[in-house]
């Protein structure tokens, strides 16, 4: 039962006890088959993103106008040189999908780092301190939330011009507000709980209460949300590329490939199917891993 309460109670200063909680969580994670599959998918995407030039020797931008819209190799007309077929410019789809993982990985991680840091901090402070701090953060969130997020990102990209950094900034700026909403709501409920009152009575500073007592208790909510947000960032980036507002066409990206493939939906379905599958599988891996982390970090919730 000791570990069952560990996810709920504020962490003790005893380093040894904390370490064993984390080891126990990792063990639980390793026993969850869905989480292991998720971790494996994430690992494959990471390997593709890091080692793309070593995995495939083909230039992702190499055009071959004598071999356009070749179907996948298992369909009549396909061949082994192009496992998943080629697009309208004769570029190899599999090669471009492998290279496309780079953009998705970079965007997903950067956006969560930006959005999570800003959002969790703001949410904790607003929910715990209330008063004018809460009011100011709430006003900024209100303005941000009142924006249709896609339209905001589209407008930002339209102003600054498409590019990887613009895309990251635009999505990061739409991301933090999600954390604020959830963390603030959770904190507002948590601050009425006995362990916070106890910490206050013991003379703990606000900073300490937020960092040591509230943050660990919103941790699992933030991890679940963080996976949603990595996923959302990858999908969001591909949507911007799909609208023609993402990374430049010379950089292979899954969304850009779908934008090309869309025009050949009725004749060459593979150009619209495989890049989308790549997005779905990658995002699914992140989601499965996040689900597993959630269960592992919060054993009280698992039956």
């Amino acid at each position, binding site marked *: 039962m000791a570990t069952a309460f560990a996810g709920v109670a504020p962490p003790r200063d005893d380093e040894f006890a904390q370490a064993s909680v984390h080891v126990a969580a990792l063990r639980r994670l390793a026993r969850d088959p869905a989480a292991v599959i998720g971790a494996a998918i994430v690992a494959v995407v990471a390997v593709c993103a890091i080692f793309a030039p070593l995995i495939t020797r083909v230039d992702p931008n190499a055009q071959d106008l004598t071999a356009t819209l070749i179907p996948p190799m298992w369909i009549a007309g396909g061949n082994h040189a192009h496992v998943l077929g080629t697009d309208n410019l004769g570029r190899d789809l599999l090669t471009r999908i492998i290279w496309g993982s780079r953009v998705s990985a970079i965007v997903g991680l950067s956006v969560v780092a930006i959005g999570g840091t800003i959002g969790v901090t703001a949410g904790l402070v607003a929910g715990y301190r209330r008063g004018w701090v809460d009011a100011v953060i709430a006003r900024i969130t209100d303005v941000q939330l*009142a924006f*249709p997020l896609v339209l905001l990102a589209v*407008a930002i990209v339209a*102003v600054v011009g498409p590019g990887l950094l613009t895309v990251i900034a635009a999505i990061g700026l739409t991301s933090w507000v999600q954390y604020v909403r959830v963390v603030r709501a959770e904190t*507002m409920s948590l601050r009425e709980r006995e362990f916070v009152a106890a910490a206050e009575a013991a003379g703990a500073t606000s900073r300490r209460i937020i960092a040591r007592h509230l943050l660990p208790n919103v941790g699992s909510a933030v991890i679940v949300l963080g996976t949603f947000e990595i996923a959302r960032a990858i999908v969001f980036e591909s*949507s911007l590329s*799909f*609208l023609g507002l993402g990374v430049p066409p010379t950089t292979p990206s899954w969304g850009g490939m779908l934008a090309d493939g869309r025009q050949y*939906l009725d004749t060459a379905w593979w150009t619209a199917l495989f890049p989308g599958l790549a997005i779905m599988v990658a995002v699914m891996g992140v989601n499965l891993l996040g689900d597993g982390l959630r269960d592992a970090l919060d054993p*009280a919730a698992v039956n």
Partner: protein
Amino acid sequence: MLTYLTRRAFGALWALIGVTSVVFIILHLTGDPTSVMMPPEATQAEMDAFRHEQGFDRPLIVQFATFALAAAHGDLGLSLRHQEPAMGLALERLPATALLGGSAFLIVLLVGVPAGILSALRPRTWIDYAARVVALIGQSAPTYWIGLMLILLFAVRLGWAPASGIGGWRNLVLPAATLGFFSTAKLMRLTRASMLEILGADYMRTARAKGLTAVRVALGHGLRNAWLPIVTQLGVELGGLLSGAIITETVFAWPGVGRLAVQAVFERDFPVVESVVLIAATLFVLLNLAVDLLYAVIDPRIRYA
């Protein structure tokens, strides 16, 4: 409570002013739309005359003051492209988007939440696994790709439903399912997670020990306590549907506000973009206020003063 409402009303007003100002500034930073608006063969003199007539040659601060004054009277100017009142143009498209978004939200509410509850109550059964697989797919696949695949399957291959346009319910099915899929999946997951967290609580065991029926335990004691994050998320999702509509409408050529907005951004039609954003922002703000008020109803420990 009254003080709180008054404060929130001012907050809402501030949010709307903030949003319109930010959009005005962002859009005007993109530069002057004259070159986009005028035909390529226009002479310099014609360009200058257009620029002067539209007021683009005045300082930004003057343009903003003029705009803000008119906007306060509900006048957002004429669409640069269509030469009609921009607000009217956007409002004209609103019913189509409302129909699409409303249908999608119904799917979210009637499928997502119940499926999440069931999945949490019957963990590790086929219901749970089926709901989780559907939720995972919906959460993982991009909206526009789901749309493309639905078009490929139901319009191109089977010919059951039209691929684009507006008309009878057959036109509505594919876009609404596309738009609602992501949020449905998200709500399923969140409801399940939220319910699972509550199901382990001591008072749930007490409720069961008291001999309450399973339904009363699940809904009266479980859902009531799990509700806070769910309602928060429902509010966010309803707003998100408006954003999602921008992409869904583009994929299905649905004549709504979202498609108008994308066209207007590309055409630099400022007054139309401003109008769309103001309409969307008004809806969002009202929604958020409703959600915050609901908190106090759902969790009496939260008090507003």
